[in-house]
């Protein structure tokens, strides 16, 4: 059981915090039919990370996160620009910007000799959950030991801070987020500043994507932005219960996925475990599938609002 604190507690906390933060933002992305923004943003971080390395010359988390955040913010602005100047639909604008920036990141990596950055495909996709070992965490008592707590992997504090910031943003701007998601034109006329809230939502999406990306990889980020809120939407017709369901599904995916990845293969006779981030994404997908089949508000149970 001591192994649990040593090996599993930190990955569980990190993946749960990442899943909760993604789901909170994801509810509004799904309502605005902008789910792919999370996907776009998590690709766009690559050139930012490479550029940060070129500028600072070190592979340190803070410059990388700053670079990635800057790239994500730049991409958000570019998407808005392409939409308004080009007059194209949001999906096309996102597609153009995020593929271009991802390709730009790869080119930058190849031509600048920054290939020494440990940016292999596996870590980019699946993150680093299993390596988050708490060496001082020799038992539950470690949670009360300041020196042991100080040795916690930094991702724990980073993701908890991101989760708190996202929760504070959603709570503080709840009305503005809701009005702006439902009826942005009306929101503008009553002074709810939908464009400012839009940009803030994009910014928080970027921050969540970047911090979660570093710890849990892009597969999990994309899954956690979309799957829990989309499944939650099928459970209820009210927004507050929807958010509550999405948080429940996020925790269930993170915990269930981690346990299934660690012990699942043993249960069916394999000796090694599988990627936790990958399994968390799979579990979130299974929850969405279950909600599609059995959710009380799935399509088909709804009476169509006929234009009378």
């Amino acid at each position, binding site marked *: 059981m001591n192994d649990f604190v040593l090996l599993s507690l930190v990955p569980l906390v990190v993946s749960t915090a990442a899943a909760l933060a993604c789901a909170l933002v994801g509810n509004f992305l799904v309502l605005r039919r902008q789910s792919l923004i999370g996907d776009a943003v998590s690709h766009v971080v690559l050139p930012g990370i490479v550029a940060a390395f070129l500028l600072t010359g070190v592979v340190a988390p803070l410059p990388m996160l700053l670079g990635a955040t800057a790239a994500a913010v730049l991409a958000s602005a570019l998407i808005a620009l392409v939409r308004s100047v080009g007059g194209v639909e949001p999906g096309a604008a996102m597609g153009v910007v995020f593929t271009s920036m991802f390709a730009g990141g790869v080119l930058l990596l190849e031509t600048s000799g920054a290939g020494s950055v440990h940016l292999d495909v596996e870590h980019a996709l699946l993150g680093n959950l299993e390596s988050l070992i708490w060496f001082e965490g020799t038992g539950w008592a470690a949670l009360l030991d300041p020196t042991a707590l100080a040795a916690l992997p930094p991702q724990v504090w980073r993701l908890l801070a991101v989760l708190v910031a996202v929760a504070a943003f959603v709570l503080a701007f709840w009305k503005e987020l809701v009005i702006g998601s439902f009826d942005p034109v009306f929101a503008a006329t009553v002074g709810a500043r939908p464009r400012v809230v839009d940009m803030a939502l994009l910014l928080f999406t970027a921050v969540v994507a970047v911090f979660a990306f570093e710890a849990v990889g892009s597969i999990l980020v994309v899954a956690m932005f979309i799957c829990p809120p989309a499944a939650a939407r099928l459970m209820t017709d009210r927004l507050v219960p929807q958010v509550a369901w999405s948080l429940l599904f996020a925790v269930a995916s993170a915990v269930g996925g981690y346990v299934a990845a660690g012990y699942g293969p043993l249960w069916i006779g394999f000796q090694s475990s599988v990627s936790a981030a990958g399994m968390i994404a799979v579990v979130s997908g299974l929850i969405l599938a279950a909600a599609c089949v059995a959710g009380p508000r799935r399509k088909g149970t709804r009476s169509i*609002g006929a234009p009378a």
Partner: protein
Amino acid sequence: MLKRAPVPPDPTAAVDAASPLSIRDMTVAYQDLAAIRSASVDIQPGSLTAIVGPNGAGKSTLLKAALDLIPRTSGRVAFWGRPFGAVRRRVAYVPQRAAVDWDFPATALDVVLMGLYADMGFMRLPGRRHKEKARAALARVGMAGLADRQIGRLSGGQQQRVFLARALAQDADLTLLDEPFAGVDAATEAAIVEVLRSLNQEGRTIVAVHHDLASVTEIFDHVVLMAGRIVAAGRTAEVFTPDVLETTYGGRLSLEAFPDGRGRPERLR
């Protein structure tokens, strides 16, 4: 009040500070295409005004540009002589019903409460007073029994009434509606007309983009005719004539004599 001649005001004149909505020389362009050319109009205080014109005449655009929702290429807009930002609490806007996603997880009451946004403080949620006000607005449009229904489960007419109730909750002096009668049933149309008339009797100004030419004289006392520009504006009795309609619609109307000798318009295409 002096009767206004059915000619648009001089584009170079100052905005009319008495008018709830005064527009001078306003041009709006999408990409390089002018949607509205040099529009000048004064909405009469206390009037029930229809904005009428063929598809693409710039009717919705006129409202949106006046409300700073889309950029104006040039021109001046004033609400009671002031910029929109300074008086937004006195103005309610009802967008086209098709402009929003009715699958949104909200009840009719939730949507009406959005009309009370300006009454709620920062970081405050709706209180009992707000909910009572919102329920009263729903009752006024005959939707008291459907307050807690998800908006996707309402008919088109009921959805339009929810939008109207949201505007009622705003308690505005000027209400701008974009096609409030589009795709609604006869009962809803009658209910909306009744609410608009009662608002009007309270001295409030109503402006509605309207499509059904046959009902213009019945419902509206003033009319603005548009065809990419302001063709005419004034009292319905004076402006809504066969000549003006023919100019507005470019001869695509058949005009038959009314019993009182005025033209009864009917859309051909």
